[in-house]
């Protein structure tokens, strides 16, 4: 079972800060502590969701991480050395060349553990499509074995293995090549968040598909729809990983069950129960819905700790969590290393 951890300073519950009135929780060290705990528990990735690209106009949110996510990711990558790091970035807020560089750099800093949560433009699906293709083409600027570092011959890289995109499209014009080395995992992993609505871009380009629904029925419907869309886009089910958002409310004991009983205003399936009950439900849900795993949105830091401390060991006892030694995020997710288009005889262009 794949596990992701969605990072916030206090928890996803908008009221969580009231129980932890401590400014230090907004700082890097406290965020790193959360990530390190998730890493130690065997989580596969941490998600930096960044309000999905919504910029604050006149208010600050207690559920937003107060750091630009790609840079926070880079800092975290040097201090947590196994967990994958998926950061949100909006196609409306970055030039594609700049975004491609950020993530290519992050992939080098993290030694192949980076993922981009694509937040596409609201308005225009055409631009979002073209944008992702341009970024992918820029990541393909160099083949896997382009950098030869031949001191004697004075060749830093093999020029026949560099590819200039020369992209001229309806929305974007980008020459290339990217001025960053080839990513250690070929390309950073492409993630999409899916609720309702248009899923064509995700079906065509997504690798890690984060499904968001408030009910099991809703989740079943989105998962089935995504699988159809992926296949309709000419890809295989095994080319993607489906992971659902879960809000765990872990009770200490059966007696304490339902003590709170609130429905939390968090997008994802809320699961109240003892560690055993939650493990049961996760297991059932994964089978019923054909999911590979879950992204945990802890409502509070305490709930996050309970999930790591009590639910994860229970999942482990059931043999659902392997001891993963893989180095790259792609390997952890069991996704194939992308084959460079030049190696399959294709022209690199977007």
């Amino acid at each position: 079972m794949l596990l992701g951890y969605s990072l916030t300073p206090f928890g996803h519950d908008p009221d969580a800060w009231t129980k932890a009135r401590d400014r230090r929780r907004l700082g890097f060290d406290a965020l790193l502590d959360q990530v390190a705990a998730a890493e130690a528990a065997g989580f596969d990735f941490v998600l930096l969701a960044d309000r999905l690209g919504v910029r604050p106009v006149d208010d600050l949110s207690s559920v937003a991480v107060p750091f630009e996510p790609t840079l926070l990711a880079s800092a975290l990558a040097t201090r947590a050395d196994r967990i994958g790091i998926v950061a949100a970035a909006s196609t409306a807020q970055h030039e594609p060349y700049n975004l491609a560089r950020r993530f290519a750099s992050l992939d080098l800093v993290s030694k192949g553990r980076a993922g981009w949560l694509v937040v596409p433009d609201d308005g225009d699906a055409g631009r979002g499509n073209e944008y992702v293709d341009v970024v992918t083409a820029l990541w393909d600027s160099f083949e896997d074995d382009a950098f030869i570092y031949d001191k004697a011959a004075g060749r830093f890289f093999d020029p026949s293995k560099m590819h200039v995109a020369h992209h001229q499209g309806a929305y974007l014009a980008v020459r290339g090549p990217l001025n960053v080395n080839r990513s250690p995992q070929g390309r950073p992993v492409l993630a999409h968040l899916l609720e309702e609505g248009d899923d064509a871009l995700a079906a065509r380009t997504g690798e890690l598909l984060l499904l968001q629904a408030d009910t099991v029925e809703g989740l079943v419907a989105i998962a089935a729809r995504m699988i159809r869309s992926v296949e309709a886009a000419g890809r295989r089910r095994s080319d993607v990983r489906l992971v659902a958002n879960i809000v765990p409310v872990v009770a200490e004991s059966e007696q304490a069950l339902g003590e709170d009983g609130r429905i939390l205003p968090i997008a994802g399936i809320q699961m109240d129960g003892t560690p055993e009950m939650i493990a049961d439900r996760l297991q059932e849900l994964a089978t019923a819905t054909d999911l590979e795993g879950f992204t945990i949105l802890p409502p509070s830091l305490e709930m996050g700790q309970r999930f790591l401390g009590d639910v994860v060991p229970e999942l482990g006892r059931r043999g659902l969590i392997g001891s993963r030694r893989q180095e790259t995020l792609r390997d952890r997710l069991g996704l194939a290393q992308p084959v460079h288009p030049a190696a399959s005889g294709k022209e690199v262009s977007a």
Partner: protein
Amino acid sequence: MSERHMKLGAFLMAGGHHIAAWRHPDAHAPAGSDIDHFIAVARIAERGKFDMIFIEDAAAIRERNPDLASQAARSTAFEPLSLLAAIAVNTSHVGLVATASTSYTEPYGLARSFAALDQLSGGRAGWNLVTSASELEAENFASSGLRPHSQRYERAEEFADAALALWDGVEDGTYFPAGGETFADHSKLHPVHWHGKHFAVDGILESQRSPQGRPIMVQAGASDVGKDLAARTADVVFAASQTKAEAQAYYADVKLRLGKYGRGQDDLKVMPGISPIVGATEEEAKAKYRALQEFIPDAVGVALLASYLSVQDLSAYPLDGPLPEMPQTNLIQSRQQLIVDLGKREGLSIRELARHFAGARGHWQVVGTPSQVADAMEERFLDGAADGFNVMAPLFPSGLEDFVTLVVPELQRRGVFRKEYEGRTLRRNLGVASPSKG
């Protein structure tokens, strides 16, 4: 203590500033994409009590011809902010200055990124504002070609003001106001409503206020508009000059402009580049220099020279002849002038100029013993040519290691450089004024 201390920046670059550094037998050729290498080098700078490390940038490959590009380590690099964010949480005192362009980014995204670097480092971030003069960069951004110099600076002026406004949008103590029932104190938020000629920005940064008030502003303008922008907005200027007279003229010129903007002489530090090649003896230093010069392929050296002269190609001219007359350029006029002057002054052929230039791209090179290097620096520091230096080691890590173990103690002995950091923020260590509290 009223002693005046020089400021030092370590201008980092992959395996070294020398164009052929990566071919040196000691060089770690993949250094430019190795984060552990950069963290180690940054820690050497910190051990040497450097004010800052500095990362240059271009949002493009620097050479159009793939054959030439493939011979230069500079063809690929980390994106500077990603790199410095990683270094920030692995160092404690050294300042972190990243280059970013006003031509190919937007104020909100850029201000947010530097705010993040500033928080990650506890107040050690700086932004080297550049307007980007290369055609290759313009071609990566769909813009209809490179903007003329004056338009680039017009945009940069507005950009700088919008970024400053965003950084001032959040006061100290905004989060968890004392005794408050709210998460954030709205009276301490100052949303920006910027509607200018080039940008529209409505909003605030989701960040705490910088521990140093605002990130440090750095500039390297050499034109009139460039120097004016620096005099108005920068805390530090970098420059390239060969002779002491050139450096003094630049220094006096920039300092004179400060008055126009109501700023004091100490509010802006002028830090020209120096490429030191240090040896225990003069002969050893010279041997180190020769060992590097050996590895420069002529074609690569000449192409680098051509790119700084802002001409497409020099291959039509005899290598052993002088530089031809140069056309006026929209690109980097100052560096072109520096090269032309150097060629005339020392009677150098194209080949010789290219080989000379390949060491430090036109910056001042000093080859000698620790005391010779310290003498040279001290002289310019005391004679109104510099407030400090941007140190460009030819080879990393060894060139910086040499400087830190041999030259820094010599400067400290002479009382012209700090023995301990004054504080934890870059602003404090540079000793430049704090902005008002927003």
